[in-house]
């Protein structure tokens, strides 16, 4: 319920305050970037903690790599989301310069996929997912579109 209220508040704040399609898209990217930055800070701590433990208990490199596999996947997902946000932003830049709405929508759709991927990976590791990420997903989903597959992981 609290998450739903947070999402509704966010959506109202962003879309209810007027502004063009492109400027609202930029605001959404900004919020999503903040959510990713926060998730990255948390993930970095999780990664370092897991690596310390894996290094202590592992008998060889293969065992270490096995223990760190899901954390390495998380790190890859975070990088993919970072790239997807830059691409979405580039889509807005192109749209602002007279480009197609379709390019903007595709960028957002790909970013949504990467954020959902991160949420699932953190959920697998910790048993809970960061709600800021899901709020960002809901914001970006408002732009619709289909990901062309470039950022699927």
């Amino acid at each position, binding site marked *: 319920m609290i998450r739903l209220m*947070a999402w509704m*508040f*966010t959506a109202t*704040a*962003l879309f209810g*305050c007027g502004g063009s399609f492109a*400027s609202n898209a*930029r*605001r*959404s*990217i*900004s*919020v999503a*970037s*903040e*959510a*990713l*930055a*926060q998730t*990255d*800070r*948390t*993930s*970095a*701590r*999780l*990664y*370092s*903690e*897991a*690596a*310390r433990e*894996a*290094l202590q208990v*592992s008998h*060889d*490199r293969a065992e*270490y790599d096995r223990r*760190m596999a899901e*954390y*390495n996947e*998380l*790190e890859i997902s*975070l*990088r993919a989301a*970072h790239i997807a*946000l*830059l691409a979405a*932003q580039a889509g807005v830049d192109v749209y602002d310069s007279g480009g197609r709405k379709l390019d903007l929508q595709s960028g957002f759709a790909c970013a949504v996929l990467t954020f959902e991927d991160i949420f699932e990976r953190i959920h697998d*590791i*910790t*048993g*809970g997912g*960061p*709600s*800021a990420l899901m*709020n960002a997903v809901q914001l970006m989903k408002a732009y619709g579109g289909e990901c062309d597959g470039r950022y699927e992981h």
Partner: protein
Amino acid sequence: MDVTSIEKAYTLIGDLAVLIKAIISAVADKDPDRVEKILPDELRTSIARHAAEAKASEKFG
């Protein structure tokens, strides 16, 4: 600090803080920050991975 306590701390403080900060910033700014201003070139998790893998290589070769 174990994973559970980190997650709890993140859920209770981090989520709320980032959401409020982001909303205030996004609504107040006519020109919201660009991705490259908010996120570093290399993510902290990637830096943590590089450091961890260096230590693993040192130990296991």
